[in-house]
């Protein structure tokens, strides 16, 4: 087997990231580039800290600022030799003194086709929107949120079966591929970032914003269209999850499909081992669900155990 002489290994970077997406990306970056240091959030009680665990495993220097001020202090006090920073799934705002401390700036891998879905939760919002395609954007960050110039974008199709978790996984793979390919080209000066509005014009993509979800987003509102609710169920998997109450049972719906049956919003019908709930237009046939506090189950097991409580 042959491989190209890897000049990528000579690229040194400082990594900023904290969540599960960050740790999966970091694992790939460690194999592909030189990671000089890992800057992440401190371990908080009761939560896992996958980035810290991974960085420890590879004996990388770890810094854990609580906020943007502490982050600026860390950068001031440690003269990193890397020309470039890389931020993925970090959760702390990065101020311009930190950005400017790297001669090639800080690159963010953002999981949408910018300028679509700027902000904290692009994956969920691209699923909710029902759009057919999404992707990953590599952007040189500026202080304004997700408005930096773009280095590269990669697209993928959103499948009708994609849940938040499965789409996230596919986007991480795409992000890794883009980083391996385009980061070296950016560092060597072969490509330079282009402004988002140019890209937006040529692709007729419009600026849109995602936001952090709250637990209440997960409440199923039967006055919405069945198509919308089906997408919510896939988009909210993991968190906040799609919840409702049927009869005396509190439920989390994990899989459903749209059926043509005409029922009033919120009205439900059990027949033929099927559970169908009316929405604003059409209805949802529930396939899999989780009574609160119980394991996930398919609809026939649920009806066998809970029919009398509905």
């Amino acid at each position, binding site marked *: *087997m042959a491989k*190209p002489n*890897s000049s990528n290994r000579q690229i040194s970077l400082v990594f900023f990231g904290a969540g599960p997406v960050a740790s999966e990306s970091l694992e790939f970056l460690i194999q592909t580039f030189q990671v000089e240091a890992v800057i992440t959030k401190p371990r908080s009680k009761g939560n896992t800290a996958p980035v810290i665990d991974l960085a420890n495993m590879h004996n990388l220097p770890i810094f854990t600022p609580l906020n943007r001020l502490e982050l600026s202090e860390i950068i001031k006090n440690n003269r990193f030799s890397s020309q470039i920073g890389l931020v993925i799934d970090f959760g702390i705002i990065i101020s311009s003194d930190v950005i400017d401390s790297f001669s090639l700036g800080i690159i963010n891998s953002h999981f949408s086709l910018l300028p679509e879905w700027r902000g904290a939760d692009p994956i969920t919002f691209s699923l909710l929107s029902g759009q057919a395609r999404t992707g990953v954007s590599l952007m040189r960050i500026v202080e304004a949120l997700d408005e930096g110039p773009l280095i590269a974008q990669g697209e993928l199709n959103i499948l009708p079966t994609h849940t938040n978790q499965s789409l996230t996984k596919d986007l991480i793979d795409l992000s890794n591929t883009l980083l391996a390919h385009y980061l070296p080209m950016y560092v060597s000066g072969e490509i330079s970032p282009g402004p988002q509005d140019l890209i937006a014009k040529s692709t007729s993509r419009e600026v849109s914003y995602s936001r952090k979800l709250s637990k209440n987003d997960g409440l199923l509102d039967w006055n919405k269209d069945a198509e919308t609710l089906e997408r919510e169920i896939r988009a909210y998997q993991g968190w906040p999850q799609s919840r409702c109450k049927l009869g005396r049972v509190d439920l989390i719906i994990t899989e459903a499909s749209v059926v043509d049956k005409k029922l009033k919003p919120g009205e439900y019908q059990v027949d033929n081992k099927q559970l169908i709930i009316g929405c604003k237009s059409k209805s949802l046939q529930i396939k899999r669900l989780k009574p609160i506090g119980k394991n996930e189950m398919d609809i026939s097991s649920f009806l066998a155990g809970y029919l009398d409580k509905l």
Partner: protein
Amino acid sequence: MKQGKDRIITLPNKHLRQKSKKVGIINDDTKQLIDDMITSVIDWDASRDHEVTVALAAIQIDVLLNVIIVRDDFEHGSPAEYTALINPVITKYEGDIELDYEGCLSIKSVYGLVPRHSKVRIKATSVDGKEIKMKATGFLARVLQHEVDHTKGKLFVDHIKGDENSFYELTSDGKLEKLDYQEKIKDSKILW
């Protein structure tokens, strides 16, 4: 007989699609085979500006025996030292499926973005007859999967056949560029 890099056979040579035979006894012939494989690889590397050989299977110098050599350090510029594995078998595939670029000395100018398991367990015999069992992760796991495939007559292109976005070529300045699948790969008389 041909020497050095010229011993390396390439597609469409049908021998590459054959299954290698198990080595029964490790003797001087086996050691000679391993020496020849190393000589071929070092010679091949010397002729390449932007590639390094990380491993080779015996069938690639047209010997249908289950022997592979793996470079000890994969980075360009590191000492060209190799470990031979005789009768290697992957006993377990583990971990996630990861994509990375692979080329093959027996497939001219095509690179592929190939899905492989991130972890494997392998069993083999060393050149001094000892049984080796090891776990491999990351790029080494990939290399071992690629070479053990050779001993079964399988090539990396077989894993990505039909994937329009997985075929690349290494340009003369050492960059990987995507190949047009429909035009260059799909109906290639050499590859398939």
